[in-house]
């Protein structure tokens, strides 16, 4: 049956048809859709985990219990899960386990770019990489065969363009009818990693990789295509597709087993062609493997190491390197001269993060100092705002421009403690969302109590994981299938950790938020402000829209500082687009003239 499937959908279906019975993930672009595709499938347990580390530990348990398991995350998620990943590589499992890492070259929706292929070599586990959805579907079955046969986790690596590209897939398999029953095989030698046992497992890891080196030589999805033998291209992932597009006549070695690599196959390919080049996105992973074999090879000398590739970039690099002829005629494409305004992502109309971030800008940043990318000394009264990963990070852009840091999940709290203990003279607040707090903020807050910090943590509680498309989390109790279970109570959790000064305010009440924040900043103990307001996109909220009372408007344009997409200037006059306005009323609280009022129906 032919189906149009994204790479993520193909991974999900491939895993289902490979007999996966347990799948867990923390949402993160570009990986999120894999678990969402699996959730409605029958006979499989799916769950959003609290973070990637817990997801992998839960997955480890499921696989120890004899159930084929899939654990899914984005590239930076594997940093969080690195500890159990290495542990899992040491113990192996009773059933198969595959870890999917979706990398984001070009940082479409990430705080950093990294090539997770390094993790395979680092943890000494086999890695598979599809070049399209068809291969993603087929490879998933192989991944579980390898995992079971070699008693190892398999790293299944995708990238944004593989995960989010839809292709025609020939669906050839079905879900196996008789899956093994769950059962734990008790073995302290295998699963209790005290040094005496770990040393034994360590030897088996090296033996495993040695056996895998032989195994991948005959792997059926690696493919050699011999055309013109003057140029031989070794490639993997989406880079392979770009290379096929650009080099019409060259010979190719497509590799899907990218760790360990098939050494004999590479040598035999190199012997058939005059010159070997490697085309791959991000780091020179394959290039270095080929070079280690003593084969003269080029790649990153002309293919960029940074960002996503595309056919133009590959072509331009190849022309520079002299492996493709320069075009005989210059392109006749005329670059238009229109000045185009940039269109950055922004917080939505009615977003509950806007009010608190507006107040932070007002209180924390000296209004006389123009924003600039150059580092500057802070004035005495300014406040350092450490922030985190989520929609609210968009508050870094003007006109809100209210944030000082964003590093990784949960870092805002630790950074604040560090700044305080280092002795900086300014007040410090940290800002993070409810899902991020559950993911990695809790331990930071525990540390604040332990360190007797004076800091203030603002939890912007919109009751969902908004940035990745509104997934439930421990604080909402909503499962991936939409069922409601017990929720972790944020206020009680924070109190239980030892915070005495706990405040809950409406995210839309600017005055209440400001006065609470002022009081907390003067308080000589750690404090938490939960600024609560549901994500308007998630809840599809539409209150009464507001409008500008033109008779009272003095054209000060203070309302533009809110950065709301519903407020625009039309015919030299500030106006509110009623079709976009959600009616949150933040701009009405900002207007010094009271000229923004609820729209009369």
């Amino acid at each position, binding site marked *: 049956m032919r189906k149009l499937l994204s790479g993520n959908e193909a991974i999900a279906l491939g895993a289902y048809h490979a007999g996966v019975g347990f799948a867990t993930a923390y949402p993160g672009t570009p990986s999120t859709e894999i678990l969402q595709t699996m959730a409605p499938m029958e006979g499989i347990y799916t769950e959003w985990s609290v973070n990637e580390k817990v997801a992998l530990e839960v997955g480890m348990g499921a696989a120890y219990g004899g159930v084929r398991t899939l654990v899914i995350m984005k590239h930076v998620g594997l940093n969080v899960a690195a500890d159990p990943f290495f542990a899992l590589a040491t113990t192996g499992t009773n059933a198969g386990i595959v870890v999917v890492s979706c990398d984001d070259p070009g940082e479409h929706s990430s705080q950093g770019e990294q090539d997770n292929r390094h993790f395979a070599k680092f943890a000494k586990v086999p890695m598979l990489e599809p070049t399209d959805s068809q291969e993603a579907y087929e490879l998933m079955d192989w991944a579980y065969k390898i995992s079971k046969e070699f008693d190892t986790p398999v790293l299944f690596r995708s990238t944004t363009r593989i995960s989010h590209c839809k292709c025609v897939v020939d669906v050839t398999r079905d879900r196996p009818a008789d899956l093994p029953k769950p059962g734990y095989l008790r073995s302290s030698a295998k699963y209790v990693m005290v040094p005496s046992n770990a040393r034994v497992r360590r030897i088996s890891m090296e033996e495993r990789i040695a056996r895998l080196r032989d195994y991948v030589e005959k792997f059926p999805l690696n493919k050699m295509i011999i055309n013109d033998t003057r140029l031989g291209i070794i490639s993997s992932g989406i880079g392979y*597709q770009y290379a096929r597009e650009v080099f019409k006549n060259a010979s190719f070695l497509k590799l899907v087993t990218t760790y360990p690599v098939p050494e004999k196959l590479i040598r035999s390919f190199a012997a058939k062609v005059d010159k070997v080049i490697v085309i791959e996105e991000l780091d020179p992973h394959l290039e270095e493997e080929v070079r280690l074999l003593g084969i003269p090879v080029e790649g990153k000398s002309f293919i960029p190491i940074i960002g996503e590739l595309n056919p133009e970039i590959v072509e331009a690099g190849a022309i520079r390197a002299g492996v493709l002829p320069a075009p005989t005629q210059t392109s006749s*494409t005329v670059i238009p001269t229109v000045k185009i305004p940039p269109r950055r992502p922004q917080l939505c109309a009615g977003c509950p993060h806007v009010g608190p971030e507006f107040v932070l800008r007002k209180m924390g940043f000296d209004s006389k100092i123009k924003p600039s990318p150059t580092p500057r000394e802070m004035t005495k009264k300014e406040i350092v705002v450490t922030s985190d990963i989520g929609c609210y990070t968009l508050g870094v852009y003007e006109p809100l421009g209210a944030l000082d840091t964003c590093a990784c999940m949960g870092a805002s709290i630790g950074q604040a403690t560090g700044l305080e203990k280092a002795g900086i003279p300014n007040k410090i607040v940290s800002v993070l969302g409810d899902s991020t707090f559950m993911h990695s903020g809790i331990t930071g807050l525990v540390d604040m109590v332990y360190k007797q910090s004076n800091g203030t943590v603002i939890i912007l509680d919109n009751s969902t994981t908004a940035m990745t498309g509104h997934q439930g989390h421990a604080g909402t109790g909503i499962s991936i299938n939409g069922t409601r279970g017990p929720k972790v109570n944020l206020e009680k959790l924070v109190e239980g950790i030892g915070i005495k000064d706990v405040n809950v305010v409406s995210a839309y009440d600017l005055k209440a938020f400001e006065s609470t924040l002022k009081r907390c900043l003067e308080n000589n103990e750690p404090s938490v402000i939960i600024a609560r307001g549901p994500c308007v996109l998630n809840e599809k909220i539409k209150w009464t829209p507001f409008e500008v009372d033109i008779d009272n408007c003095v054209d000060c344009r203070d309302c533009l500082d809110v950065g709301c997409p519903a407020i625009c200037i039309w015919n030299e006059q500030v106006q509110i687009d009623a079709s976009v306005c959600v009616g949150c009323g933040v701009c009405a609280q900002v207007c010094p003239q009271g000229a923004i009022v609820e729209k009369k129906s």
Partner: protein
Amino acid sequence: MKAINVLMVGVGGQGVILASDAMAEIGMAAGYDVKKTDSLGMAQRGGSVVSNMRWGKKIFSPMIKKGEVDFLVSFEEVEAARWAAYLRPGGVAIVADVMVMPISAMSGAFPYPGWEEIKTALTSITDQVYLIPAMRIGQEVGNPKALNIVMMGALSTFLDLDSEIWLEDIRKKVPPKFLDSSFQAFLKGIEATKSMK
């Protein structure tokens, strides 16, 4: 078999992705190899959306090379200018008369160019530029959300495919209560484009 490269562009929330998904399915149903890929990083938060959609005998790269787009379908005027350089000389630009002003233009930091300026840029590449009265059609059919269906109607006039294939796809996707207005939007998109040819 005619291979085509379509670049669909717009702003988060306009239905660009749904339209290119539909195009990909229609291409597959017509027997083509199909690939499509979206750049939508944070599109739901008002960023630019761009969707590459290719039909052909055998497609390798889902990304279309600059200067090789046969059809630039823009759901917003300024976005047409942003992606104009991707259009092949002599290709077709289909642009909805929709303006979504970004914050950068609202503050006055960047001017929001007018249609004449955008049109001049497009006509330096091709004389096949069609401005679709999508706002008017949306009002006429009483469904402004049908913008993507209007644009599919406009695009369909350039592709040699049975109109039933298109209508069938709309039937599959659109909830019953919007079906009638969607069909109308599709037909009006065709009508408006044909009247300009």
